[in-house]
């Protein structure tokens, strides 16, 4: 099955700074999602982005499926952006919706 890697594993930012989180996957995927997990464990949908670029406020994401990576951009970071960011890729070679999560990037935004 596919492997999903994320980098960096940990990130500390000053409020107002920009950052780029990366997700690499080892094989073809049917789709890719980015999530933010809050301190209570809730996974919040950020982007459903099997390919191309999307933007939502201060966040944007780009997936280049042919090169097997996706990027999440956070601009003008705020303390509320703190938490763990996961990318999740759906294995394109299974007959069912097998979604593999990366290990996550833990982001801390300090005032």
């Amino acid at each position, binding site marked *: 099955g596919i492997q*999903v890697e994320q980098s960096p594993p940990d990130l500390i930012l000053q409020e107002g700074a920009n950052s780029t989180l990366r997700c690499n996957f080892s094989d073809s995927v*049917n*789709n890719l*999602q980015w*999530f933010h997990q809050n301190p*209570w*464990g*809730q*996974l919040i*949908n950020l982007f*459903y982005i099997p390919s191309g670029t999307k933007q939502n406020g201060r966040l944007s994401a780009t997936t280049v499926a042919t090169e097997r990576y996706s990027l999440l951009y956070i601009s003008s970071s705020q303390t509320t952006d703190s938490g763990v960011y*996961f990318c*999740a890729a*759906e294995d394109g070679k*299974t*007959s*069912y*919706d*097998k*979604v*593999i*999560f*990366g*290990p*996550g990037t833990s982001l801390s935004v300090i005032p």
Partner: protein
Amino acid sequence: DAGVTQSPTHLIKTRGQQVTLRCSPISGHKSVSWYQQVLGQGPQFIFQYYEKEERGRGNFPDRFSARQFPNYSSELNVNALLLGDSALYLCASRLSSYEQYFGPGTRLTVT
């Protein structure tokens, strides 16, 4: 519209006991998946159910079982609990092959 709901929120069990976790998908979503998230890791796929049939299973022992009901709600059962089963159990629903939406999770502690 209500999101994915899960019950109970928290649960404490003793080794060797059995536990049942419940999930109600978003209205109209026929696919339900279960994930286990151990502290410090990304969620790991356990099962996917679609139209009451098991479509896929992750690398989990037979102590883990699930079912889906005619109203598309689902139960996850774990028998003969081990300390290592302590985790956040997440349920997700989706419409066809689009993005998944997660519930708030059930935090299981095995003592």
